C-alpha cells in the first residue's frame, strides 16, 4: 500500500517532562482522497494518542483547523495531500502565535481584538417592524467580508502583527469594514476611535500576506484600505462640506 510521511511539529510547553519543540515523523497509508486532517486523525487514533489539533466541521466552513502545512497557511480539512506534491507532508502550528500544544495555538488575543472593535451591528434609529430594507446593491458590498471564518491565518501571517503586539490585525479590521459597509449600520462614530490610529488601520503597510494566507480567498487588505480612505473622506466632509 502506498504511504505518506507526516512530519509534525510537536511541543507541550506546559509539560515538565517534555517542554521542548521537536519534529515527529509518522507513516500514514495514502489514498487519493486523503486530506491532511484525515492523516492527523489516523495518527491520533492509531499511532500516537497524545497528538493535539483542533477540528470541527471537516468541510472548510468553521475555521478550526488552520495550520501551517508545507510552508503555507491552509485548513487541514480542505487540503488534499495529493495536491501538495512530494511524499512528505510537513505540519506545524500557525507561526508566531502562543502555543497551547502541538498544532493548537492560543487564540485569546485574536478574539480579544475581535471583541475590541465592537463587532456587532450598531443602530441608533428605532428598528422598523419588518426588516430594515437593503438593496441588492448595498448587500453586495458585504459579500467579501462576511465570508470570514475567523481561522486566524491572516493574523498569524501579518508582519505588522509580529512587530506590534497591540496591532488589531487583518481579521478584526476586516470585521470593522464589514460593518462600516453595511447600509444598516450606524456605528461609524462609536467604532472610529477603536481603529483609526496606529494600532489600527495605519499599522497596515499593505504587505498583503493576509491575502495570500486566507483559505477563503478574501482580501483583508482591501477592506483596510477602504477604511483608511473613508477616514480621509470623513475629515474632508467635516472640513469642507459634503461636496
Amino acid at each position: 500500500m502506498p504511504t505518506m510521511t507526516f512530519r509534525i511539529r510537536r511541543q507541550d510547553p506546559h509539560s515538565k517532562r517534555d517542554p521542548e519543540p521537536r519534529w515527529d515523523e509518522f507513516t500514514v497509508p495514502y489514498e487519493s482522497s486523503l486530506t491532511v486532517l484525515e492523516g492527523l486523525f489516523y495518527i491520533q487514533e492509531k499511532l500516537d494518542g497524545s497528538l493535539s489539533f483542533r477540528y470541527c466541521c471537516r468541510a472548510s466552513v468553521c475555521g478550526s483547523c488552520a495550520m501551517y502545512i508545507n510552508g503555507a497557511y491552509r485548513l487541514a480539512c480542505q487540503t488534499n495531500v495529493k495536491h501538495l506534491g512530494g511524499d512528505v507532508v510537513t505540519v506545524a502550528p500557525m507561526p508566531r502565535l502562543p502555543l497551547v500544544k502541538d498544532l493548537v495555538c492560543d487564540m485569546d488575543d485574536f478574539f480579544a481584538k475581535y471583541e475590541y472593535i465592537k463587532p456587532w451591528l450598531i443602530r441608533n434609529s428605532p428598528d422598523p417592524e419588518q426588516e430594515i430594507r437593503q438593496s441588492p446593491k448595498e448587500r453586495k458590498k458585504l459579500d467579501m467580508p462576511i465570508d470570514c471564518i475567523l481561522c486566524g491565518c491572516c493574523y498569524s501571517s501579518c508582519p505588522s502583527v509580529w512587530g506590534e503586539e497591540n496591532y488589531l490585525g487583518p481579521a478584526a479590521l476586516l470585521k470593522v469594514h464589514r460593518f462600516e459597509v453595511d447600509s444598516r449600520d450606524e456605528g461609524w462614530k462609536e467604532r472610529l476611535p477603536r481603529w483609526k490610529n496606529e494600532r489600527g488601520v495605519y499599522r497596515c503597510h499593505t504587505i498583503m500576506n493576509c491575502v495570500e494566507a486566507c483559505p477563503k480567498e478574501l482580501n483583508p487588505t482591501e477592506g483596510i484600505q477602504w477604511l483608511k480612505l473613508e477616514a480621509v473622506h470623513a475629515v474632508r466632509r467635516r472640513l469642507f462640506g459634503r461636496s
Partner: protein
Amino acid sequence: MIHHDLIVVGGGLAGLRAAVEAKRSGVDVAILSQVHPGRSHSGAAQGGINAALANDPGSGDDTWEKHAFDTVKGGDYLGDQDAVMQMTKDAIGVIYEMDHWGCPFSRYDDGRIAQRPFGGAGYPRTCYGADKTGHYLLHTLVEQAYKLGIKLYVEQYVAKLTVHNGVCQGVVAYDMIRGGFEAFTANAVVMATGGAGRTYSNSTNALINTGGGMALAYYAGAPLKDMEFVQFHPTGLYSTNILMTEGARGEGGYLINDLGERFMERYAPKSMELAPRDITSRSIQTEINEGRGIGGKGYVFLDLRHLGAEKIIERLPGIRDLAIHFEGVDPIEAPIPIVPSQHYSMGGIDTDVNGATAMPGLYAAGECACVSVHGANRLGGNSLLETIVFGRRAGAEVVRYLGDLKEKRPNARSAFAAVQAMEARVDDLGASTGTEDAYTVRAEMAGVMKEHFGVFRDGIVMKEGVDRLMAIKERCGMIGLRWTGSVFNLDMIRTVELEGMIDVALTIAVGALARTESRGAHSRTDHCSRDDANWLKHTLAYYQPGVAGPRLDAKPVTLGPFEPQERKY
C-alpha cells in the same frame, strides 16, 4: 468551583439565542462550548430558514398557518401541532430580529429579505443568505453574545451533569486549554449541544456532533424522544457525505440517474426534486438499489449545469467551492455525484414548547432537543428556525423559572462529588489494561448504524443491528487511554464520549426496531405503511443503569387543526 445563574452548554444557534434572551433579562449567564461558538455546526447550514414573510412576489398569500400545515404534513403527522404552530407563528418576528442584529440575508430588489423554494413547502418561504445562511446567522448571534458581554468558556468539554435531589444544578467540564475537570454550578442548565450524526459513519455532520448532550441528559434521567427518526439528506457528496444544500434543487437543480432520467418523476410527479427529504432520499436509494446509480455505482448526479455560471456563482457559491475542493467537480461544468447521507436527528431530549425537560432546572433547545416540531421528518429550513425560536423560548422560560426559584444555592458537595466521579472515571480509563481500541469500537458502531438503520429498514436486519450494538457496548468496558496528559487530550475526550454515543445509538436502534410501521424517515420494508391506530404516538427512551439498551415508553401526539391524511407530493 465556578457559579453562574444559568449555564448554557453549546454555543451554536440555539445556545447563543437562549443565552442572549436570558442575558437581556439580566440573568448571569455563561456559555460552555467545546469549540469557539463561531465554529459551531450551525454555521455549516446552507440553504436557509423558513418563515412566512410572504416577500416573494408569488407568495403574497402565504401565512404562518400554511407554514404550520406544510411542517405537520412533512413530518407525517407525528409533530405536536401546538408546538408547530408556536414555531411558525414566532418565526416571522425572530427573522426580523436577526435582520435588525445585522444578519446579511440576500435581498429582493425592493430591499426585502429574499426567499427561495424548498422541499415540501407550498411557497418560496426559505429566507437565505446565498448558500451560507447558517454561517451568517451564527456569526450574527456570536456578535450579539459579545455585545451583551455573555461570559464564554471556550473549549470546555462538558462531561457530566450535576444532579442534586432530582434537580439539575450544573455541569462538570474538562478545560481543554488548561487541563483538568472543573465544577460549574448553576440554578439552571440549557443543553444546546446539537445532533448525534456521528453515531453514523455516513453523516453530513461536523465531527463534534456526537450526541453528547443527549447522552448526558439521558444518563441524568431525562427521557429521549422519537430517537428512531433520523433524517437522511438526499444530497451528500459521494466520497465525504459533505452537504450539498437543498437550495441547489430549490434554485432548479435536477437529480439524474444512469439513464439520464429525472427519476423523481416516478416518485413525486408534482414536487419533483422538491419533495420532502425522506421521500427524495428513498427515491435516490431505490434508484441505486435497482442498479440505476451512475455506472451502476452507489450514487446519482445532482446536475446544476443548466442553471448557468452566473446563477451558480451568485446563489450557490459555497457548495460550488465544496464540490471543487472535496469531490474535484466544478458544478458549472459537470454534475455532482451525491448519495443520501445521515443529516439530522428529529429526536432528542424530550421538552415542552418552552424547552423544559422532565427534570427541574434542565432545559434543552435545538437539535439535541425534541419538542416535537419535525415529527417523523423535518422540512429543510426548519432546523435553523427551530434553534432560534426554541432557543429564545428556553431562555425566556429560564428567566421565569429563576424568578420563582426559592432555593438558589446549588449544593456544593454534589458538585464536588460529580467532579470526583469524573476524575475517578478518567483515572480508571488511564489505568485500564483492557485490550479494546476506542477507535475501532467507534468505527464499528458507526458502521452498524449506517448498515442496519439507514434509509430503508427491516426487522430482521435491525434485530441483528441491535444485537451487534449490545455486543459493542460490552466491549466499552475494556478500553484504556493511550495518553493521560492534561492539556488538549483528544484521546481522553474521544474515549469518554464513546460510551454516550453507543447508548444514544441504542435508543435509535431499539426505538426503530420497536416501531412496526413506516412513518416519515422511518421506512420499514417489513411494515410498509403508516399505522395511525397503533403508532400515532411518540417514543420515549429511558436510561436503565446496568442494562444495555433503553426502557421504552410512549407519549401521545398533540393533534390540532390538521387531520392526519396520506402524504402525496
